[in-house]
């Protein structure tokens, strides 16, 4: 990696001011994406502002009809959380299948969402569960947060502090892992919250996570695995790479959606 300045922030304000005064600073959360990028010399930030010392960005709060998860909460803590397990088991399941134990012990929900890897799992949960992304500046509705592959509508010095998930009536997540990376080749989350059906797809889209409106309408009328499987997805706008053709991904979306419905019950 190239040289950089390391700063450890003690509070959200510290973090934001450190970043604002840096020439080309980056927040450092779990480092599971950022550090490998630096090691490969694909990025050259002037400063890393470590968020791991900010206590009020960690933890899971039960708000009754919602759960709020601090941005610096590690995947392992979501996977092991009783609150998440009892209220949104699909989210717990999702977190427990991210990467491997080392990655789950380091990686954070805030880092995952800020990074918006087109094959990451959490973005699917944010979108299907219609979560609210809370930053130091504002609150984003899920539909307004992501902005294409590896891009979000965050400003340069904007810090995600927490994510608030409304408790759904039903939700399920099914992931078909990329055989090599074990990220999602296709991951589908289906959810019914406050009577609304939302279906999100990660891993497949050229622009990152997206909502599958055809499956949403099919499920709105008929919440069943067959209904989801019956939707023939178009391969327009889907990724094609050495692991999967766009056509195969399109097919997997319906299959994974039906499995997600089965999982949701």
């Amino acid at each position, binding site marked *: *990696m*190239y040289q950089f300045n390391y700063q450890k922030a003690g509070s959200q304000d510290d973090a934001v001011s450190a970043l604002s005064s840096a020439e080309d600073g980056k927040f450092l959360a779990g480092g599971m994406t950022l550090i490998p990028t630096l090691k*490969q*010399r694909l990025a050259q930030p002037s400063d890393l502002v470590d968020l791991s010392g900010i206590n009020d960005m960690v933890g899971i709060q039960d708000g009754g009809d919602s759960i709020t998860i601090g941005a610096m909460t590690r995947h392992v803590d979501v996977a092991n959380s009783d609150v998440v397990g009892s209220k949104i088991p699909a989210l717990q399941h999702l977190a427990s299948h991210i990467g491997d134990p080392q990655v789950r012990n380091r990686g954070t929900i805030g880092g995952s969402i800020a990074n918006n890897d087109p094959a990451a799992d959490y973005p699917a949960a944010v979108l299907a569960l219609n979560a609210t992304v809370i930053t130091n500046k504002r609150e984003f509705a899920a539909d307004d947060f992501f902005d294409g592959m590896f891009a979000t509508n965050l400003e340069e010095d904007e810090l995600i502090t927490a994510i608030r998930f409304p408790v759904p009536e039903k939700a399920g997540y099914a992931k*078909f892992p990329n*055989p*090599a*990376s074990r*990220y999602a*080749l296709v991951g589908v989350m289906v959810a019914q919250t406050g009577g609304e059906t939302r279906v999100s797809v990660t891993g497949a889209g050229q622009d990152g996570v997206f909502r599958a409106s055809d499956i949403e309408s099919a499920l709105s009328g008929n919440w069943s695995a067959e209904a989801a499987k019956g939707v023939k997805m178009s391969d327009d706008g889907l990724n094609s790479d*050495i*692991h*999967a*053709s766009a056509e*195969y991904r399109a*097919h*997997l979306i319906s*299959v994974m959606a039906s499995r997600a419905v089965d999982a949701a019950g």
Partner: protein
Amino acid sequence: MSATGIGASIKRVEDLRFLTGNGHYTDDINQLDQSHAWILRSPHAHAKLNSVDTSKAAAAPGVIAIFTGADMAADGVGGIPCGWQIHNKDGSPMAEPGHPALAVDKVRHVGDQVAIVIAETRDQARDAAELIAVDYAVLPAAIDMDTALSGASLVHDDAPNNRCFDWEIGDRDATEAAFAKADHVVSIDLANNRLIPNAMEPRAAISEFDRSTGRYTLHTTTQNPHVIRLLMGAFVLQIPEHKLRIVAPDVGGGFGSKIFHYAEEAILTWAAAKVHRPIKWTAERSESFMTDAHGRDHETHADLALDKDGKFLGLRVATKANVGAYLSTFGSSVPTYLYATLLAGVYATPAIYAEVQTVFTNTVPVDAYRGAGRPECTYLLERLVTKAARDLGMDPVELRQKNMIQPDQYPYQTPVALEYDCGDSPATFASALKASDYAGFEARRGAAEKNGKLRGIGISTYVEACGIAPSAVAGALGARAGLYESAQVRVHPTGSVTVYTGTHSHGQGHETTFAQLVSESFGIPADLVEVSHGDTDQVQFGMGTYGSRSLAVGGPAILKACNKVIDKAKKIAAHILEADVSDIEFADGKFTVVGTDKEMAFAEVSLAAYVPHNYPIEEIEPGLDENAFYDPLNFSFPGGAHICEVEVDPDTGHVEVIDFTAVDDVGRVVNPMIVEGQVHGGLAQGVGQAVLEGCVYDADGQLLTGSYMDYTMPRADDLPNFSVSTQGVMGASNPLEVKGVGEVGAIGSPPAVINAIIDALSPLGVTDISMPATPNKVWQAIQASSVRQAAE
């Protein structure tokens, strides 16, 4: 027999060191005043090097020196040699273009070495490397073999049509005659997928030059330090053996990829004398993907001729093999003598003819990788035989049984040069059928169907060849070295023993297995034996470890040296016990005068050898330290049967390997636990090749599978609980009666897996699937056949 001798499953003496992080690998070594190297590599697959301007980089902080191909050429440094010369059909030698350690006029694959930057720290070296201005004129790349053979773009100007050689083996006329009288001909086209080895430890080296003695030392991650000394010293740098020490300390896996003499070893050694500083280099994982020699990469068409009863009459094979941009150490022998000489497999096919063309491409060199040639051969044969059974409506078990070489036919001369010394394929096959409950399979298929899964079963029966030898034969076939092994058995005064072996252990557990040989021979506990390997200053000579040769060739050398020790010790005991040598018997660690109670323990004799007060000094020298070289009479031929069961999820194309049964004949088993571990590892790599692993270059020669994000290594949860057992016919060609076990798992298993997948999909009309059988590929095969069936 000693409790820690042959046949005992003692725990590996290496385990404590390796499992507690106390191994001592090349990168763990730091020399006083060492500098660090970064190798600047080509980002292009094929380009002319117009200029390499290092001036800005040379002024960067910490930089000690920068060298390019021009500097090495000016010093008269030779190219990286190939260890085996193959001849074309017309008798002319193969094309053998130069392989400069640092590129001179052209770069020929992504990752080819362009310059070495030596600096105080690794980061400084890397920073400076980014300042080197290279003017590349990008040339069209020859990546796939057909494009390369069209000759549109030449990797080397002196290899027309990018052909390295066009070689043949077997009797063409006899084979054509067999086809002329055949009732059936079954044909197959298949590819053996290119693999990236991925040893856990990346390649690394530290070079030193001692100005006061003129001696060079290179610590390097190699499987064969003496071979590197020979190749690099004699062919590349012209350093005589006594001035060149090669040390391979603990090495974290090789799988073949660390046999070869790599350019970095020569560059570092040469540069150490320029800068008068030790130089350290450790590959990044991405460099390993890009520059470690890859494995396999064959495309083959084959035809099998059968009579009306299914007896094999003849086999005709045409293979194209990719050797990459340069000929690596064994790049030419793997697709020829390690491949086509095994095309009889376990079958008594009377006529075989094979031709192999090798092709230069703008990809990293291809060379031996666990199995080296034999997996390619086994995959071809076992896919073809299974296809023959399906096409002719015959039972795949019976078809194999009908054609197998029978136990009473050994020694069996194949039509492709090899003579199998011993074996019993029908017996291992029968055991595997039983162990896998082959007969009960249809019930399991039915149960899977109820769960929406397609279950299939696949068979592979195989024979392979280890311990390439005798040297005279290898030499006649083009090997540029002998293939014997050496050992020194040094008994210390108090009766403990150090064994020096010319083989090298990089995960195989030789330190344990070889100690067991000595324990057995001397009747002493294995923990009194230390095995030393890897340092050319300590070990007399050696050819190293590859081709499952260490026990089959290195073991008998140790045994020979032990026997010399015993012969001498008997003379000492006879003198002290005042008996005739012919009356001395050695058993259970004691020298006894037959028919008396007069005896001496092993350690009493060794002490007498070093404290020769009462000693036959007129007749023998003091000391108990013996050397032996062993050149085998023949290859050894492990073999066996692998049976695999898979379940396919028809909705996603995902293949789960459910069961895997391996019955392997590896001859005598020295340590059953180590043997089992070796088979497990080999099976993991075989399953990996069949369903997970595949190297992909794009048409421009960029490596698309350059990290674990895209290259699928097998993980524990990709694998079933293996059922493995051994069933030996004792090896006939060496005194230990061992055959070799390091590669059998990787050789036998891929066709068993693919045959199982095709069997699972056969109800849908699928007849072929290529490796790796990824979910996407399996799903596509299902789609294509359902479309086809709908159209019919």
